[in-house]
């Protein structure tokens, strides 16, 4: 690479794209908890529903290894939502409810006081 301008071009291009994204944590902990089938089911469900314009991104560990597989939904201009314990069935339902119908499946959303204790 010859210059920092090239880096800048890539950066603004990638940041500019910003389609809706599904992030699936696929570190060793996520994989052990079945993130591969979460990924497969998500791909399949997006295809079945012909939802183009959504990226599925395989990421690393978020630190909550206990609650894997974790799946994050990023809709442009909206709050990022983290779902936990997302097996393939939950993944399909999250896509139907959250992505398609904007209906967040509260039951599987990581609560804000997760990982904390008042003692």
């Amino acid at each position, binding site marked *: 690479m010859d210059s920092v301008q090239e880096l800048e071009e890539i950066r603004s291009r990638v*940041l500019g794209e910003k389609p809706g994204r599904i992030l699936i944590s696929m570190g060793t902990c996520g994989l052990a908890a079945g993130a591969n089938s979460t990924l497969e089911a998500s791909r399949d469900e997006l295809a079945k529903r012909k939802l183009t314009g959504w990226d599925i*991104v395989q990421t690393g560990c978020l630190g909550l290894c*206990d609650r894997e597989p974790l799946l994050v939904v990023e809709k442009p201009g909206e709050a*990022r939502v983290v779902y936990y314990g997302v097996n393939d069935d939950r993944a399909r339902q999250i896509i139907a409810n959250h992505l398609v*119908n904007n209906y967040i499946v509260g039951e599987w959303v*990581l609560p804000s006081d997760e990982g*904390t*204790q008042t003692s």
Partner: protein
Amino acid sequence: MPQYRHHILVCQGTGCLSSGSTGVLNSLTSEVRSQGLKQQVRVVKSGCFGFCMQGPVMIVYPEGVFYTQVQPDDVPEIVSSHLKQGKVVERLLFKDPETHKPVQEFDDILFFKRQKRLVLKNCGAINPENIEEYIAQDGYFALAKAVTEMTPEQVIEEVKKSGLRGRGGGGFPTGRKWEFAKGAEGEPKYVICNADEGDPGAFMDRSILEGDPHAVLEAMCIAGYAIGSHQGYVYVRAEYPVAVSRLEIAISQAREKGLLGERLFGTDFFFDIDIRLGAGAFVCGEETSLIRSIQGLRGEPRPRPPFPAKEGLWGRPTLINNVETLANIPQIIRHDGDWFASIGTERSKGTKVFALAGKIHNTGLIEVPMGTSLREVIYNLGGGIPKGKKFKAAQTGGPSGGCLTEEHLDIALEYDSLLAVGSMMGSGGMIIMDEDSCMVDVARFYLEFTRDESCGKCTPCRIGTKRMLEILTRITEGKGTEKDLNDLENLAQVVRENSLCGLGVSAPNPVLSTLRYFRQEYEAHIHDKYCPAGVCQKLLAYEIDPERCKACGLCRRECPTGAIKGAPKQPHHIEAEACAKCGVCLSKCPFKAISRGPGSRRPEPGLPAEVAAGGDEARVHPDSGSSLVH
């Protein structure tokens, strides 16, 4: 048959009919026709969805969009916006009035909010297999800045100013190490990333490599520029296959983009990185053993000095840094040293990643500023101890470290304060123990690990860890004596002072620290033949509940040592002296009449008066005889 792009199901159940779905259906049919979509959209009457209170309802396939409370007036918009342009009509989507509380945004989740994620900032946020996502998060900008705007001396100066210390366990100032490597005579020089991570319970290095491998590669390039090296190696254990494959992908993408290789950013600087796989021996995390291992030799340490910075790989000056240490570097260069030094404490700068494991609610990885209290980590981030149990101890620094107890809950987690209480930061593994953990057994576990992992090159470590383990095993089996405690302490001293490398030097730490804080547990095992936590198998007492026993005789027949006595129609009992604690009776009893527990304290005979009195009494009781001992 026409290929429809959309199927629309309009509910014609009684509920929806009464809320006006006939009008919706008619309007839809005519609107589809008038907007010219008849060949592409098929309207279907459907039965009840069971959502009558939200009627009239319809579903648009293939996406499965669910519209509620649709009025005929809404239909033209659905057709023109959704069916023609693919834009969902948001206002008609279902909103649950009850559960429609504001959703937890990612950034509001306290688990993340209470952390300071610098090293882990990209983990879980970007695709590690796509270099462009890393670049979009300012990746490789630090390298660009270093090679085009800074001299090597300036790079080292920033790292020194940052106060960054090695995260691999020793806590050596990183900037000084870079300076030594730069100043050392000899060519070529090497940069090694230590990704051996042998400490049981630690997995932060693995997570960094899996989630953000480019941060480590970028840092190695910067280090290479700073010390005048052109070749780096990542030494990673083969037991981390996901990390290895992501590293491979990352390296090849960086080469493709020209971020590894010749003439980086149009300068004369060039650098490349290769992977070397380790076979997973703990001692190969030690730098001199690691270097031998890369050279294809047996993984054994050698005395230092000379340090690797002077005489390392192939006898050449070599900079060796841990994964997490390196992962801090790009941000230090992108901001500056002072920015980094503003985080943390006086003598420990920046953040630290801890791997939480054991008896804790959230096993996982967290990152906090140096100096955060143990209490914050365990309770506010770790979620506390499960099942309402009581916190007993946290082992930090793995097999080289020691335990922190309840009295240390408010200790600031940083290098020096941990050393002061007989533990150490180590790599950041933290194993939490609750009231059900036996500290003698914990010490035995770690000693078993170091005994197994000792390379055998030096005698104090090879034989010392073996003898210490023998003593600890004896104690957990109820065969320990007072003399054993003295021997253990003496041996610990010898092993610590005479071993060749850090493995042996630190191996006694878990023993010394549990002896320091839980001596009474050792004494209970030795004098009372009693394991207070009820963990040590050989000290457990089996008992038959006479109320529940139906005298079926099954346990008596199964007992391999004939320790169970009883006659037909009489509740059976176990003779403790003969019992081998195998547990067969417990598993066979159909009436759940047999239980296992810590039993009662069984003092040794021949002890001072008051203890001996207990001994006399014990002899009367068939269950608590002490003849096991001699």
